[in-house]
């Protein structure tokens, strides 16, 4: 069948099961926007290309399916670099299609030309400049395969205009759809080495103070069920990193919650004091380990990751297993049972009581505000947590509000927490929440955002209002770039430099209403719950609540940057 590159691209996306594209048209991608009119694929017209990328990420986080974004060349391609980098850091499956100037114009500094594959090389799992229209079906097939298998990640396809423009003979091709992909240099290893799995089982069954260190790879491998089975088999406590919140339910007795720079005392200290860390789909990120030389120095390491480059990158494992977390954990459970688990194992009652002692002594805490004072952000989060469905999806931006949400929310289901972990992208929350709601329209979706973050990407609420995507945004408005303020207070002698934003400029309620959303402002504790309840009832447009919160509130516990996790500062009374 004779076709053209543009129609072939859309047909290929349909065959890959794509149901939604987040995008914004422009000159070079224009011919591809014509066949979209006749396609069953839903297109969501964003207001800024960065929004398209983060929406695709939010969609992927919530559904496990690859998010798809499509934008034009030049400035559109550069605008989507931040989401690509974000997806690369957090292993989010995403396919981004960019228009490019015509093949004859490449390299001539043509209008809206940038070297997109050159610029995005280090922030994509793979990228490809299409040079022949006949390659389009194959390249699309390969892109989805690469994005979704092995360690997932973003793949970019850059397509010159003449290859998709039916008026141009360069766009002609005979349609085909490859049965399989042929990528001789790409063979992710899924099955763990049986001998290494037996070695790991021996270390686990002998450990007296083991801790499972669960990372975002558990979610990517759909391994939450296997993880819980492993933890329960030997009664091993689990810390769930920022990227793994919800993999083991927070209300499960074995869940110790979040470790790291703003992790709770028990999660941080259990890792420090353990004699065996079982790292599953986690990567010893500096925000988890603190000063690496002082991290869990008594612990042996079992490390399972689908990316062999993660094994030994930061900490050399005693047993390092390359493989898919779900397959390896299932094999590990079998291996443990073969050597007598759960009957044969050391008495770990002392370890368990040590842990519960820490939990009792060092719970998360804050002091409720006095009448007439600004809201405590933690109080707002407790109210949100307790007055939304158990399977509510929560997205956040980056900063204090993100850490408080990760700490105070109860994540009882996988795929309910969406945030920017590795790259730390301010402005992630609003578009990511929109993408999540598009992917999971059956779920309630809240974004918890900071006032600084909100101002970076708020324009996408226009997209959400126009498309009737009823996300709900809680702005914890402390009128500051709060996390920077916290560091300036603690480490720069309270010399506040360029962190004040004002609570009233912009007027968030009016801004929300101008964007077609319901806007509310809440200043006192008794108004928090009614506002949340009112927001929960709105199902035809987005809602924005401007919660006026106390700027003096800091995120605790905290391991100061560069310090050992043993130097954890539990609360304000601990500071110096």
């Amino acid at each position, binding site marked *: 069948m004779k076709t053209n590159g543009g129609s072939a691209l859309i047909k290929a996306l349909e065959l890959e099961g794509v149901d939604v594209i987040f995008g914004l048209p422009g000159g070079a991608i224009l011919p591809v926007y014509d066949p979209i009119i006749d396609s069953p694929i839903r297109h969501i017209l964003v207001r800024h290309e960065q929004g398209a990328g983060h929406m695709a990420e939010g969609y992927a986080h919530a559904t496990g399916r690859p998010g798809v974004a499509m934008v034009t060349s030049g400035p559109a391609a550069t605008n989507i670099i931040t989401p690509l980098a974000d997806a690369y850091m957090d292993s989010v499956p995403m396919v981004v299609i960019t228009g490019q100037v015509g093949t004859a114009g490449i390299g001539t500094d043509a209008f809206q030309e940038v070297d997109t*594959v*050159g610029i995005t*090389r*280090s922030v994509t*799992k*793979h990228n490809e*400049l299409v*040079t022949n229209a006949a390659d389009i079906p194959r390249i699309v097939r390969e892109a989805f395969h*690469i994005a979704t298998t092995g360690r997932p990640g973003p793949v970019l396809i850059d397509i010159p205009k003449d290859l998709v423009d039916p008026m141009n003979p360069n766009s002609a091709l005979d349609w085909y759809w490859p049965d399989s992909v042929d*990528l*001789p*240099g*790409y063979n992710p290893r899924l099955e763990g080495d049986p001998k290494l799995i037996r070695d790991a089982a021996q270390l686990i069954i002998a450990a007296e103070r083991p801790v499972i260190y669960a990372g975002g790879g558990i979610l990517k491998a759909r391994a939450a069920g296997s993880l819980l089975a492993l933890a329960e088999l030997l009664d091993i406590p689990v810390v769930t990193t920022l990227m793994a919140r919800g993999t083991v339910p927070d209300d499960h007795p074995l869940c110790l919650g979040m470790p790291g720079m703003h992790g709770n005392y028990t999660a941080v200290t259990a890792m420090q004091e353990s004699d065996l860390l079982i790292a599953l789909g986690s990567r010893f990120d500096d925000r988890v380990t603190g000063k690496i030389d002082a991290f869990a120095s008594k612990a042996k390491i079992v490390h399972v990751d689908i*990316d*062999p*480059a993660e094994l*030994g*990158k930061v900490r050399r494992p005693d047993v390092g297993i390359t493989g898919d977390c779900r397959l390896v954990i299932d094999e590990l459970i079998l291996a443990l049972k073969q050597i007598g688990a759960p009957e044969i194992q050391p008495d770990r009652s002392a370890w368990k009581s040590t842990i519960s002692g820490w939990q009792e002594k060092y719970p998360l805490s804050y002091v409720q505000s006095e009448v007439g004072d600004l809201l405590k952000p933690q109080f707002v989060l407790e109210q949100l947590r307790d007055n939304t469905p158990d399977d509510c999806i929560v997205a956040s931006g980056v900063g204090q509000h993100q850490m408080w949400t990760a700490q105070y929310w109860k994540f009882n289901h996988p795929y309910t927490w969406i945030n920017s972990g590795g790259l730390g992208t301010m402005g992630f929350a609003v578009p990511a929440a929109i993408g999540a709601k598009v992917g999971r329209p059956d779920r309630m979706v809240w974004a918890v955002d900071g006032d600084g973050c909100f101002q970076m990407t708020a324009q996408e609420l226009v997209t959400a209002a126009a498309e009737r995507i009823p996300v709900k945004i809680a702005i914890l408005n402390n009128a500051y770039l709060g996390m920077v303020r916290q560091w300036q207070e603690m480490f720069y002698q309270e010399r506040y430099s360029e962190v004040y934003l004002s609570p009233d400029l912009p007027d968030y309620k009016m801004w929300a209403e101008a964007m077609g959303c319901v806007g509310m402002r809440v200043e006192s504790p008794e108004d928090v719950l009614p506002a949340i309840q009112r927001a929960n009832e709105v199902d035809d447009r987005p809602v924005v609540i401007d919660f006026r919160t106390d700027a003096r509130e800091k995120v605790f516990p905290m391991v100061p940057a560069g310090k050992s996790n043993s130097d954890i500062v539990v609360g304000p009374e601990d500071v110096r």
Partner: protein
Amino acid sequence: MSTPMRHHLLSVLVENKPGVLARVSGLFARRGFNIFSLAVAPTDDPTRSRITIVVDVDSAPLEQITKQLDKLINVLQIDELAPADAVERELMIVTVMVTPETRSELLSLTEEYRGAVLDEAGDRITVSLGGTPEALDGFTAQMGTAVAAYQRTGRIALPRIV
């Protein structure tokens, strides 16, 4: 210019496609490793190229760089060649300033190295030499300040036949 212990030889088989060299060299730059020398050309299979890289790095980061290289979709195979297990060659063309007295000395040395005279004018002669990198180092050392300019290809290598 002998090879210090920190020099490692990587033989990287890649798909012969546009941009692959940029992917490989970009990865070294991004991870902060210095490429000491690099040679690239198609192999007997025209869809494949072999990149021979001499990299200046300790062995622990080398493991990380080879694992990261292996993640590139267009990289097919990576072999780290220990000098004892590889045959290495490098090509050099060198322009030497000569006097009537030193001219014959250069020509006989070139013959000794099984090189060839490529060009000659006035007091300058350009010769080509192939050999082990160490042999080429020896030649330029022997010529000393008479060397006006030289260009080396970077080393190429294959595993020894066992």
